[in-house]
């Protein structure tokens, strides 16, 4: 018992300096760079959190930790582009447009499922606002630096701003059905989005006019009222915030593409996009991206028309495609989810691995920093026993910024950072597939006694 405690203490004191960057040498692994091919018996050197060298027989610098990866597979840390873990609030479901709210304010670095995700080779997640609102809140990109109590230390510094949109049944059910306001239909959702963009455009114009005229002699105007919601929407129009839109049906995907075209918005990723395969050429032509499930559907009416070939069809049509979890359990085996595209669609190893590495990085705007093993990128690495796309793949080490955050050989039973004196035992719970977390916080609207 004492020994375990000692190990725990060591772990925490090591990882307490969360934004510290580590150095290490990973020796003799099969290096799956994803973007630059597969390199047998190759070393990866990480210096101060960045990949410094990828080559054979790199001499170990003095005092640097060495991981013997002989017979193991070294891949870029897995990136989940659609997650709701490590957050204290998911849906601000009180209004169909809540662009001003930001998940970065409610990051919870204490959640144990962060460690679970690390145990699945995940190093970076896109923690999203839920899908209750046509225009939801801003999302946050997190590095899984588990071990810190600091909210700021979890955020991936310099990652672009992103925002969640949602189409179809969720926003119409919450606001039309739940609160009896617009949108009640898919038409209403389009109206809400168009009106929001138009309002934001006018807001920008009003401010521009005010700033231009305020020093002109005889000008009598007051400044427009500050509005954080419109400020945020204006940033979308300026291209400073990337849209990630919850969507399923081909018609609504086309609708939002048209809206984006009308307002000059270029950067958009469709989340889920179960019918994405129907409009793959249109998505590719626009430069829109897609983040899909491997084979999860039929949990509500609008997700019946689905296919396990979705990711492969999108990929073959030139759409930058990723596979996501939307679920803390599935997040732990995203590599298997990616592997399914080899059975359904015969993607190559690099194509399949790209679905959970470089492609989500592109969608989140962090591909210059992560998503592949290349010199100069962040030292985010997952090391597997057996190939990660095989059903025998098992993560052994997960490394974030050159610091080992998961080591299968040293995996204490109790990895909770903090035990609240009031907390009860977390008993095992089993969620049935179909309980996604996109709608967390809205349940009360659908109680059977509510009209």
């Amino acid at each position, binding site marked *: 018992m004492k020994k375990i405690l000692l190990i725990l203490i060591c772990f925490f004191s090591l990882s307490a300096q969360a934004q510290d960057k580590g150095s290490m040498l990973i020796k003799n692994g099969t290096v799956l760079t994803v973007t630059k091919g597969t390199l047998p018996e190759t070393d990866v050197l990480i210096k101060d959190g960045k990949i410094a060298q990828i080559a054979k027989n790199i001499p170990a610098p003095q005092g640097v930790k060495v991981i013997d990866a002989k017979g193991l597979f070294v891949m870029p840390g897995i990136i989940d582009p659609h997650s709701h873990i490590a957050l*204290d*609030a998911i*849906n*601000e*479901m*009180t*209004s*169909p*447009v*809540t662009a*001003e*709210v*930001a*998940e970065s*304010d*409610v990051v*919870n670095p*204490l959640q144990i499922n962060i460690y679970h995700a690390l145990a699945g080779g995940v190093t970076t997640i896109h923690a999203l606002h839920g899908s209750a609102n046509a225009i939801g*809140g801003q999302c946050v990109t997190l590095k899984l630096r588990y071990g810190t*109590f*600091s*909210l*700021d230390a979890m955020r991936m510094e310099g990652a672009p701003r992103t925002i969640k949109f949602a189409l179809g049944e969720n926003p119409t059910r919450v606001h039309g059905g739940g*609160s*009896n*306001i617009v949108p009640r239909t898919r038409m209403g959702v389009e109206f809400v989005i168009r009106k929001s963009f138009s309002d934001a455009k006018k807001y920008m114009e009003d401010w521009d006019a005010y700033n231009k005229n305020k020093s002109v002699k*005889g000008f*009598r*105007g*007051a*400044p427009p*009222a*500050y*509005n*954080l*919601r419109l400020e945020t929407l204006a940033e979308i129009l300026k291209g400073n915030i990337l849209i990630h839109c919850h969507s399923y049906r081909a018609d609504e995907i086309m609708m939002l593409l048209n809206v984006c075209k009308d307002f000059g918005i270029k950067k958009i990723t469709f989340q889920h996009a179960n019918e994405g395969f129907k409009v793959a050429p249109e998505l590719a032509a626009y430069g829109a991206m897609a983040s899909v499930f491997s084979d999860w559907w039929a949990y509500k009416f609008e997700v019946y028309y689905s296919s396990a070939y979705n990711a492969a069809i999108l990929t073959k049509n030139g759409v930058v495609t990723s596979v996501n979890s939307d679920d803390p359990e599935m997040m732990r085996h995203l590599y298997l989810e990616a592997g399914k595209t080899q059975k359904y669609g015969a993607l190559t190893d690099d194509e399949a691995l790209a679905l959970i590495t470089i492609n989500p990085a592109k969608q989140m705007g962090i591909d210059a920093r992560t998503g592949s093993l290349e010199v100069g990128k962040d030292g985010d690495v997952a090391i597997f026993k057996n190939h990660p796309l095989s059903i025998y793949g098992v993560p052994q080490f997960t490394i974030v910024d050159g610091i080992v955050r998961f080591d299968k050989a040293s995996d204490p*039973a*109790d990895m*909770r950072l*903090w*035990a*609240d*004196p*009031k*907390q*009860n*035992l977390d008993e095992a*719970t089993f*969620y049935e597939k179909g309980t996604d977390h996109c709608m*967390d*916080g809205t*349940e*009360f609207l*659908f*109680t*059977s*006694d*509510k009209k």
Partner: protein
Amino acid sequence: MIQRIDNRFAGIFFLVIGLFTLYGVSAQDEKPIAPVGRSYALTHVNIIPSPGKKIEKGTVVMKDGLITAVGTNVSIPSDAIIIKADSMYVYAGFIDGLSRTGVTKPKDEPGQQRPKDPGNPPAERAGITPQNDVRNWLNPSEKSVEELRNLGFTVSQVVPYGHFLPGTSAVILLSGKSSDDMVLVDQSGLYSELTGAQFIYPNTVMAVMAKWRDLYRNAMLTKNYQAMYVTNRNALLRPQNDRVLEAFYPVIDQKTPVVFKAEGVLEVQRVLTLKRDLGFSLTIGDLREGFLVLDKIKSSGAKLFLSLDLPDEMKKDDKKPKDKKDSIKTGTKPKTALDLEKEGLEKRKKESIARLTAQAAEFSKAGITFGFSALTAKTKDIPSNLRRMIAAGLTEEAALTALTTAPAKLLGLDDRLGTIENGKIANLVVSDKPYFNEKAKVRYVFVDGNLYQLESKAPAKPDSKTVAKGSWSYTTETPNGSNNGKLTIKDDNGNLSGTILNSMGKETELKEVQLSGSTLSFTFEFSMGGNTQKVEVSVKIDGDTFEGTLSPGKFGNFPMKGTRDPK
């Protein structure tokens, strides 16, 4: 004990009256005694003029609400009432940095309809009333004033009830006949909590923070424009009045701080995020888990009041009787994985309690100035909680500092409060033994020169019977904000039953209602999207309040608190 050095007839007369009045008060219904001149002398007393200093067998003289002389060689004015405090200890009156002492709770308005557009509710429903002033709810006869004063507290910074932006705070004396009488500093800060409204905007913490930024930046712009307008009233459009935004002006001018309640390690970081983004000066009250991000808090420069509440200590052999029973029945069984899991958690919880108890010690060792806040502490537990903090490494000197000089400084009142010195407000606490001694009893408290004498009361019987029956108002905290409602418990010759009314106006029958010792437990069911979810509740009743957890199965455990509705 009390004499008057005055051989004039009138002196003897006042002596009689004085004696009568002093001995006539009980701890229950004491009233300030205001003899002519309000002149007192505490004699032969151990004076702790400031933390770490001591004057043995000294005298403290007070007149008209101020301390006029302190020392061993002090002449006692002829009109002073003498209190012989031989072998007693006198300290500067304690200061509480954040609470609702003396603040009347506005009546709940149950059954309010959800606004037609929940995304755009009236400001009051959203909890946005920063223009309100706590002075409107101050009442010197609130029980909480006397209760806190009886422990030696003489000053509190008090805030209105409500969430998000309930109004401005005030520093008050725990004495006086009227609201204005009590107030030492009005509008001492703008009070805020990161708590959302129920089912209306802003509901979640992230929306509360977004709305905070929106209001603050709007207030800055409006303020600037108003200033511009004043200099050029003929040429510019007249700005609109807005009481909500105007309430931020003193904060923007750095004249007053924002006073935030922030207990947890995440909550306090969120408050610091707002401070960093907007640049206001910040006071944090009721802090519990600050030691987990100590450096971050230290470097923020925020003024700190640590919570005087502590988690209950875990009883050493809490479970033994049960285990015994089991082992008799089944023999010695090997521990299951679940047993080990439970043991592991209990051990971690114990460690957490130890660290929470040592928060003040950790802050003190890190050289951080802090006071205490009584906001969520049970008043009667405060002395024992202080002793637990001292046992966990806080020096008595540091504890006294946090009760006197530090809060005086943090509130900007160190010229008038915090020490026993000439010219300071006559706020004193006198105990028969050193204050932090377990057996110490507070004998006299002076607030603003008014004397309150405490009778040594027999301790309340610990086995007074817990009554569950009646109507209760409860609140629960869930990730989606706080909820409140009514709980009604009926007692039919020991058979308990009842109903629970949630904030959506739905009443549900309770099942398995049981009272064992002071623990009330029950279950109820609610339907959600066609599924029925069983909810288990277990709360500990303490007189007219309860505290415990509400557990809707796999959704987790949420804190639940309640108070008995007045009959």
